[in-house]
């Protein structure tokens, strides 16, 4: 179990993380979802004893990250956002060295595990290639592989599928899930909705260093009133006023970004003609209309007032 208790980290006069409290249960996959600069990496590095929190406390299985860092380090493995691999080494050397430092496996066992993981990640052909000659995506897979081969009881992945092609992403997700199935607690930082939604059992939305919400993806969607979203694109949204649509009782919220209007509502199919009518009579030209179920993206928008992509 990992507990953040009002944890904070200040760099100079910038609060990278502030008053952050959350409890991460054993064996769950927690997604930390937030835009770039939200503080995800800082959170993970504090948990991994690289940075010292400047306020509050963080404990990992009861060990305080500041007072008992050595105990914490034995439990955690972090796959970094930017691959931290020694360029002069090959993929198999990187993994072997990592295992040597983090586990007690003998040489034979290490070789077997490294081979397994390289094969499952489709890196076996390139195992001898020096990592600085690898593409960004391949290097990233080697970084993820460090933790997948180590199988620590707490596995942390910082944007594990950034720069990966689609087949590789699916592969990495599958392997992260397997890791959890074998008992590891997994924490995944991401700024990608689909990753958070498909991988995590619980999503913690982080924005500007603070925890904004943390629930299962389903519960999060439930917090958006209405359960449906109507997306309208106008040819000119500059004259649009949200109040125009708020007078319908089925409409719970209206958000606007330039020409794009998001209407959170229920009974959308019945309401749609009325909304189109209202807008047309006011002289707005509607370019496109889309009615859909609430997605995590909408949740993110309602909590932070911004879109991710």
């Amino acid at each position, binding site marked *: 179990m990992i507990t953040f208790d009002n944890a904070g*980290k200040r*760099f*100079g006069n910038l609060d990278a993380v502030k008053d952050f409290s959350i409890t991460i249960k054993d064996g769950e996959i927690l997604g930390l979802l937030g835009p770039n600069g939200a503080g995800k990496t800082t959170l993970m*590095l504090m948990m*991994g*004893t*690289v*940075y*010292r929190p400047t306020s509050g406390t963080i404990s990992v299985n009861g060990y305080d990250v500041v007072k008992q*860092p*050595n105990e914490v*380090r*034995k439990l*955690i*493995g*972090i796959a*970094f956002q*930017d691959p*931290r691999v*020694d360029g*002069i080494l090959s993929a198999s050397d990187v993994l072997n*060295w990592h295992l040597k*430092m*983090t586990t007690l496996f003998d040489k034979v066992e290490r070789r077997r595990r490294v081979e397994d993981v390289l094969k499952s990640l489709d890196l076996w052909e390139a195992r001898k290639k020096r990592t600085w000659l690898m593409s960004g995506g391949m290097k990233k897979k080697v970084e993820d592989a460090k933790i997948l081969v180590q199988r620590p009881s707490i596995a942390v992945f910082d944007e594990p599928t950034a720069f990966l092609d689609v087949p590789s992403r699916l592969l990495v997700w599958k392997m992260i899930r397997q890791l959890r199935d074998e008992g590891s607690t997994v924490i995944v930082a991401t700024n990608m909705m689909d990753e958070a939604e498909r991988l995590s059992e619980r999503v913690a939305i982080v924005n500007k260093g603070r925890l904004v919400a943390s629930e299962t993806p389903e519960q999060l969607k439930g917090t958006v009133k209405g359960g449906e979203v109507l997306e309208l694109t106008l040819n000119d949204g500059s004259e649009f006023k949200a109040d125009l649509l708020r007078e319908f009782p089925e409409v719970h919220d209206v958000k606007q970004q330039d020409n794009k209007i998001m209407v959170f509502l229920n009974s959308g199919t019945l309401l749609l003609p009325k909304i189109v009518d209202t807008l047309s009579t006011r002289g707005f030209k509607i370019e496109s209309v889309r009615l859909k179920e609430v997605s995590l993206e909408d949740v993110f928008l309602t909590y932070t007032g911004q879109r991710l992509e």
Partner: protein
Amino acid sequence: MALRDVSVLFRTPWIIITRGLAFVIQLFVFAYLISGLILVPGLNFFQYYAVGSVVATIASISFVIGYDIFEEAEEGVLDYLLTLPISRRQFIIGRALGGALRAIIYIIPMFLVVAFIEGFAQPLSILSALLSLFLLAFGVTGMSITVAVSVKSANRFDVVLALLELAVSRGSTALYPIAFMPLYVSVFAPFSPVSFAADSARASLVGFSLDLPAIAGLVAFVVVFLGLGAAFYFRRLEGGIYS
């Protein structure tokens, strides 16, 4: 951790070879010329200079670990190393030890050549001379790490290290006896760790004897800079080294 630093050396064997060659050429040409010029009764300057060159070389090489660590911090590899299950104390000692071992391995061929030139008294004198060299390398490594983590910009870091290297190796009795130094250097030279190492290595090789005060000085040097290195290292890192 120490092994990691040592293995870095073997990845670039040509450095050892070219540096070794350069050393031999410098030693023979330069020392021979100078030893003809400097005539001190009772002192064979060639012998003096030969040991001193080895000591000065090991001092400069030991500074290299600082560059490694600085680079690691910039590239973020340090963050990774710090998440590994190693205590901070083990970590810093491992790094310094690795740097020192690396320097010793690097210097051994030159050292043996010199030991033969000196006509060393007995195998033990080789060992005790190596011990002095090792202590020096260990301490300089600690010093280099201290600088690497207490200086922020890469440019300033290069300058500070270069100056330190100059001060430590030139301001010492490694290459010239005190009598030949300008006054302002001769005041500091006796207290330079490089002098300690040079004097005790000479004492061991040329007629076997132990220069105990010099060795004590070396040990103090090691302790101070390892301590400082460690303290600065972790304070900086845990606060976030790059901004």
